């Protein structure tokens, strides 16, 4: 099996779709000559030309909104919002338009639009370039929400998102781009709505997303040496959510920790906790612990940033807390 970085895996899925299908095209700020601010789209301009790899003005509403219009007309646009913090500028189009056209039209309209974006802390970006906002979109019927954590997943899920007939908000994590991992030789679609069990375990389930999947795996290793057996599950798709796998895992281990980089309050972990406490009520031996960022805008100075954002150690502590309950 070949190895790709997370960045290359995204690019590979894009290139495959662009090759296969004339209706696929990309729009976003600086995605052409520069290859995107994260170098994800490098080389695509050369292969596919400026009509299909379109630099846009700084117009987050129009980027998403024109994607909607093109999608309704039968294209499969993949638009990029450079940092997810700037999704705040396209909420109207995402939430009132993309998510609702199908219902409002009584099923006449389809919006096969993919909105790629990225974010995350860990590089001193300050408060406006590091948020993790995926939880908002899980609250919006009509959208799908995907947040892959490995090269294999990001490639297979991006493919499925592009070919899904619904608007998909697709989150990438900035610090994962250089991460290497094996991928199938042939691009294999991964269905939306299937969780992935990264590691089996007996004592506690960690349900983690994005960067925290890797922190959780690290924490699981550490816990192992303390005699705690940890199962790590990545939902990968936040909406729709593979409740069966998640609840099944917790019923088995009887304990659960949720982990994401976003602030805890109002985060996706809340939804997970609510679902799990209901689905696994009779099995749970301890309260579900939530790991996430502390509740403040991200400060610039590295020492403060590091402390605000959750790390493997925070997951490990939560594992210990939940196991300590009898």
């Amino acid at each position, binding site marked *: 099996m070949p190895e790709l970085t997370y960045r290359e895996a995204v690019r590979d899925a894009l290139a495959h779709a662009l090759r296969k299908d004339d209706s696929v*095209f990309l729009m976003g700020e600086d995605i052409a000559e520069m290859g995107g601010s994260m170098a994800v789209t490098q080389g695509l301009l050369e292969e596919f030309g400026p*009509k299909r790899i*379109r630099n*846009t*003005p700084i*117009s987050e*509403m*129009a980027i*998403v*909104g*024109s*994607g*909607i*219009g*093109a*999608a*309704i*007309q*039968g*294209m499969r*646009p993949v638009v990029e919002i450079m940092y997810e913090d700037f999704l705040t500028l396209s909420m*109207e*189009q995402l939430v*009132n*338009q993309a998510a609702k*056209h*199908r*219902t*409002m*039209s*009584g*099923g*006449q*309209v*389809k*919006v*096969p639009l993919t909105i790629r974006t990225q974010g995350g802390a860990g590089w001193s970006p300050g408060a406006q370039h590091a948020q993790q906002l995926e939880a908002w979109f899980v609250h919006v*019927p*009509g959208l*799908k929400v995907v947040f892959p954590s490995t090269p294999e997943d990001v490639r297979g899920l991006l493919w499925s998102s592009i070919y899904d*007939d*619904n608007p998909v908000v697709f989150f990438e994590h900035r610090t994962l781009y250089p991460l290497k991992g094996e991928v199938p030789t042939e691009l294999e679609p991964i269905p939306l709505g299937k969780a992935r069990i990264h590691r089996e375990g007996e004592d506690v389930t960690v349900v983690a997303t994005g960067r925290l999947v890797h922190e959780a795996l690290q924490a699981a290793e550490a816990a192992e040496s303390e005699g705690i057996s940890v199962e790590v599950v990545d939902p990968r798709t936040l909406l729709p959510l593979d409740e069966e796998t998640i609840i099944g895992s917790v019923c088995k281990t009887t304990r659960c920790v949720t982990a994401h980089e976003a602030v805890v309050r109002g985060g996706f972990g809340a939804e997970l906790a609510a679902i799990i406490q209901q689905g696994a009520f009779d099995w749970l031996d301890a309260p579900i612990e939530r790991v996430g960022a502390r509740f403040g805008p991200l400060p610039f100075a590295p020492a403060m940033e590091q402390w605000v954002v959750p790390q493997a150690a925070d997951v490990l502590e939560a594992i210990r807390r939940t196991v300590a309950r009898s």
Partner: protein
Amino acid sequence: MATVEEKAGTGKKRVSNDALRGFFREMLLIRRFEEKVEERFRAGELPGFLHVAIGQEAVATGVCSALTREDVFASTHRAHGHAIAKGTPVDKIMAELYGKMEGCSGGYGGSMHLYDLEVGNLGANAVVAGGLPAIVGAALAFQMRDEKRVAVAFFGDGATNTGTFHESLNLAQLWKVPAIFVLENNGWAESTPAEQQLPLPVDQLGKRAAAFGMKLIEADGQDVEAVYLAALAARDHALAGKGPVLLHVRTFRLTGHFVGDPQVYRDREALKQERETKDPIRLLGARLELTDEDLAAIDAEVTAKVEASVEFAKAGTDPQPEDALKYVYA
């Protein structure tokens, strides 16, 4: 499209009298439809939030008559006239207002969300300027696929204050997509008059095109022929690859903002004057020198259509509660 002839000797274009009579019929149909909506709302039959376009009929008819069935458009909260003019049967529209499955949006949309993909209605929008970006995208799709179609956005003067307006026109012009932005300038955003919401004098709102270097075409929105010819010119421009057009028409809202609006903010005398002098249907009727019998005949015809639409709507099927989630995902 109606036939356009040369105005004898002048080199200017004009629309044949026959075509104008057709416009008259459609405008009166819209008027009677809107009046019926007001009436049925007062009777407590229509749920929700309704906005009629009484006074603005010439814009809907003038613009949509210049479009083909393949051309698409997005509308606003004030949507009925556009939908009728683009060819959706009044039955389906009235049924939608009654929330019936036979409605043009299956009862899912309501007055502010009329759709009809078959005739190119991409949806009315209850968010001011909410439909503009999609029109840029639709036009982009046509451009990328080399299709000879235009995408049209209707919106009001109030909408020109939104960031969405700016980003949409800007992108459209940058990429020279075949879009027409129809600015229906009635000088009001709900209760807020032009002076309180527009930094430009109300008649100079076309200057907004300058920010993008966009082609501006202007017409008297109460003169259906002028609107029609302007829309034709705009369409030609867009299809010739010369880029989008801001089509600015000055028009008049001869009723409240929404059905039931007591208009406490509005000068009664001025409104009365406007109703007398700016009514596009009266103006066209006078120009066509319609006789009373002519008028009565046309009126009877369109009124019957509207009455029938109410019957059709009332006889329609109520959706089942559980149908609610049928179309959340494709």
